[in-house]
């Protein structure tokens, strides 16, 4: 069984990146366009990181824009692919177009806020220093919640759409990933947004953070749970892909459900860990 939709030759024939890219763009032009814009924006940010010596919380001011650009690009990129599993004709509907444009607007405004704050060398999230920045932080919170409703809306619509072209395990993982992303992120990021900082204890510096992610190693870091919560949309479908080769559909689905439960437990664990002021993986450099 193929994971592709029936009209899509990209996966059925030999691996063809150009065809996959075209098909990807065809499925959801707005979110696909935004993904590409965010990836292009990473280039000057990467360049700025090389020439700008300013730091915020002891790391380059450009780390955060880079993380948010790539993270939101990944979020949109996978929604674009899953748009192929929405009921036929959904993406042409007027309400959907408006909704999709709203998601792009929320993400883009959030990224502009983060980039402008970094260019100015000040904080974005948690920055309530001036009336303007305080307002921006609140607005960004509303925008961020709107942004993650995308996963919820997709999850419900795909759940109610039979999608017989998908293998049962992969289908279950797509639905689980989409439907878990919203509530998990809502809790993890909502709590983070209400906290004074992402650090719980420790010396409140990002300089000694974990490799790649930058998470604190000397105290709790609320960003860990936010990361796993938001990226359920990526990790669970990857697990689902791994079940495609299982002969028994029942076993594949059971694997996905078990994996999803374990994933929720992992996210909850990292959240509680941070609340207790404990680092996620202190031993990783």
């Amino acid at each position: 069984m193929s994971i592709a939709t029936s009209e899509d030759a990209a996966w059925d024939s030999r691996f063809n990146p150009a065809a996959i890219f075209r098909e990807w763009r065809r499925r959801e032009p707005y979110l696909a366009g935004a993904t590409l814009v965010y990836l292009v924006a990473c280039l000057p940010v990467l360049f700025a990181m090389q020439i700008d010596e300013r730091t915020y919380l002891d790391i380059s001011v450009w780390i955060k824009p880079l993380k948010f650009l790539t993270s939101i690009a990944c979020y949109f990129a996978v929604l674009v692919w899953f748009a192929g599993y929405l009921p036929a004709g959904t993406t042409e509907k007027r309400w959907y177009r408006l909704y999709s444009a709203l998601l792009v607007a929320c993400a883009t405004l959030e990224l502009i806020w983060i980039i402008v704050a970094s260019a100015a060398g000040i904080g974005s999230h948690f920055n309530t220093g001036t009336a303007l920045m305080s307002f921006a932080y609140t607005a960004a919170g509303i925008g961020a919640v709107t942004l993650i409703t995308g996963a919820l809306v997709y999850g419900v619509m795909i759940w109610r759409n039979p999608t017989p072209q998908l293998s049962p395990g992969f289908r279950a993982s797509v639905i689980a990933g989409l439907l878990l992303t919203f509530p998990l992120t809502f809790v993890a990021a909502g709590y983070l947004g209400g906290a004074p900082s992402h650090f719980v204890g420790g010396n409140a510096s990002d300089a000694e953070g974990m490799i790649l992610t930058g998470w604190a190693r000397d105290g709790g870091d609320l960003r860990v749970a936010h990361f796993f919560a938001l990226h359920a949309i990526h990790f669970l479908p990857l697990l689902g892909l791994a079940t495609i080769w299982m002969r028994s559909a029942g076993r594949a689905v059971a694997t996905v459900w078990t994996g999803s439960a374990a994933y929720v437990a992992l996210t909850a664990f990292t959240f509680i860990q941070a609340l207790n002021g404990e680092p996620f993986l202190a031993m990783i450099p």
Partner: protein
Amino acid sequence: MNPETLFSAVGMAAMIGWLALLASPFIKTWAWAISGAVIPLLLSVAYTGLIFAFWSGAEGGFDTLANVQKLFEIPELALAGWIHFLAFDLFVGVWVARTAAREEIRFWFVIPCLFLTFMFGPAGFLAFTALRLAHGKGFLP
């Protein structure tokens, strides 16, 4: 990266773009891809990165000549301004060469316009517009 190193690097990049453009009658597609897209885009990335990094530290602005001069007192922003020249002059150079090719204006006539664009930007644009008028092509881009 210090501004002097970057200055040399962008100068080199622009030079490659202009040489490619000069060779455009022989290698049209490649020349236009290099001098019309690759190099101006690389320069644009560098420019944008410099603005991201150094704009907020500047005191000047665009409102008065004195304020513009103040912007250029910061070496990194003077460099950004220079990259702006390099990127846009090259881009206009490509537009000149492509327009000339489309309108069948001989390349020999175009070379002096390209040289002027390379050295003095807008003067080359003016010269090429005059050349197009002389060929009865109107003056709208």
